[in-house]
């Protein structure tokens, strides 16, 4: 069923404004998506009616907050089709989720001479935690190369795999180029040598159906704010037996069973990994974002976004001086490009003058930019509330800008 986009836009108050005297065209969705009214209402509603610390006090507000908080956990479980809610750890975001795995699983199960495989497409948050771990314990970081289209070289990945591989940590969909990686095959191959697999789902979870059981991934990390939800909140999914074998992350309240000065016993999962008072209000509001996505249906969202991506690629390809960056066969709705003879920064500022919000620069993927021989790109990324007429506005602006240097 196709979506009623006009009606859907009505749910997002922020979209209805002018920027520099022009209607806002928001194409920076890979950085963060906008939030529907229901999420905003849930956040204020929580502070107006329900605010209390969770899992502790024996009073009505505490009960209610706890119940709402845990119902988000259950909604996340359902969203990624995990076996049980205990496998869902709530974090600050993708970055913290990956760091959590590095600091616990990494420290315990990865040692000197062991290998961790990542790819050239990774966001800095799936590079630096592993570099830090390797520096600490003498493990070795291996990187899967890519081809010029921006796809990983699968055969090279197979060559890197060995008995020494302890972890493959790979992005499901690239934030800079949109490339969707063949993660199901990667996971199966990694498991053959006994390695665990972490998926960076920051960009995939908003566009694709991600079923952790069907994929059989060991960890999945993603952020609420790229899923129409609040900022500063994310998820780490992990298989129960792995999470149970991991040492705790941070110490404090919530994560303990019993504390004495002779020693402390730790709580069950997921609480073992959630020390301190969590981001309760945002967690509760996040459920409304998941409801929003589930109501529309991932298939309908993907169909609409695919149509936008294809339309944008067609419109922009006509423009003299337009250079697409990343032309993988399988992509989420991210369109990265350069304009011949122009710096991406200048293009971004000029688009902003027309009310169009895009991201310019290296997109936190400097090694990828280096591989592509670029300083950066202009990136337009589309969400479910974007329209073809907005793409017309973009194409029109890019045409005018490109003409400066491409007569």
């Amino acid at each position, binding site marked *: 069923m196709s979506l009623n986009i006009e009606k859907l836009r009505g749910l997002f108050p922020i979209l209805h404004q002018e920027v520099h*005297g022009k209607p806002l065209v928001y194409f920076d969705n890979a950085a963060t998506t906008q939030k529907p009214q229901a999420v905003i209402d849930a956040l204020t509603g929580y502070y107006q009616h329900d605010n209390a610390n969770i899992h502790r006090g024996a009073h009505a507000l505490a009960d209610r907050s706890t119940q709402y908080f845990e119902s988000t956990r259950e909604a996340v479980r359902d969203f990624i089709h995990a076996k049980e809610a205990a496998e869902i750890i709530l974090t600050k975001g993708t970055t913290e989720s990956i760091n959590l795995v590095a600091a616990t699983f990494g420290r315990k199960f990865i040692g000197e001479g062991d290998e961790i495989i990542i790819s050239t497409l990774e966001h800095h948050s799936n590079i630096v935690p592993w570099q830090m771990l390797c520096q600490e314990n003498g493990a070795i970081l291996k990187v899967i190369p890519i081809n010029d289209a921006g796809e990983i070289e699968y055969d090279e990945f197979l060559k890197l795999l060995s008995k020494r591989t302890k972890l493959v940590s790979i992005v499901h969909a690239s934030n800079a180029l949109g490339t969707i990686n063949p993660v199901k095959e990667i996971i199966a191959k990694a498991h053959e040598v006994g390695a665990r697999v972490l998926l960076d789902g920051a960009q995939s979870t908003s566009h694709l159906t991600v079923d952790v059981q069907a994929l059989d991934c060991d960890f999945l990390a993603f952020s609420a704010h790229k899923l129409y939800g609040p900022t500063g909140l994310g998820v780490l999914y992990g298989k129960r037996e792995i999470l149970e074998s991991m040492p705790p992350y941070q110490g404090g309240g919530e994560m303990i069973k019993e504390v004495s000065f002779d020693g402390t016993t730790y709580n069950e999962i997921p609480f073992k990994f959630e020390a301190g008072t969590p981001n309760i209000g945002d967690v509760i509001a996040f459920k409304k974002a998941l409801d929003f996505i589930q109501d529309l249906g991932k298939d309908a969202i993907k169909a609409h976004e695919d149509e936008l991506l294809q339309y944008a690629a067609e419109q922009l390809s006509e423009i003299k001086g337009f250079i697409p960056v990343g032309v993988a066969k399988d992509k989420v709705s991210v369109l990265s490009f350069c304009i011949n003879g122009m710096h991406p920064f200048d293009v971004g500022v000029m688009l902003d003058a027309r009310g169009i919000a895009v991201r310019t*620069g290296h997109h936190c993927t400097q090694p990828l930019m280096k591989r592509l021989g670029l300083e950066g790109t202009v990136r337009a990324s589309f969400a479910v509330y974007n329209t073809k007429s907005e793409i017309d506005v973009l194409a029109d602006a890019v045409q005018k800008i490109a003409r*400066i240097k491409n007569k």
Partner: protein
Amino acid sequence: MDIKEVQEEIISEFDILGDDKESTIFYIMELGGNLDAFPEEQKTEENIIKGCQSKVWLTASEEDGKVHFHADSNTDITKGLISLLIRVLSGRKPSEIAYADLYFIDKIGMGSIIGSQRSNGLAAMIKQMKLYALAFDAKLNAGI
């Protein structure tokens, strides 16, 4: 013209452009085209200004007690901004440059045009120009 007069001139030029951000940016980019060619061999790490998101190279020379600036950037908008600074500051006595009050930047609404990140870069550029001026000032005074 003194520093104040040049700034007033720039302010009135930008006044003519009005509130339209797009035409203002196109104008700034055009100004960048007026910069003198900058020798490739001087695009060194030493001459790069730290704090700029886009790359900016700046050198200065002194002749008859006046400081002359030469600069380049890899982005056209930044080039335009530099050309404005050079128009105001180049060819003046070191002390004039070091203590110049560059109010035209606020007056023409540069902050909202270039965004906060580039504003930091612009501030770094001005600081570097003033540092050059102070260094020449010290040298000239020592020479007397």
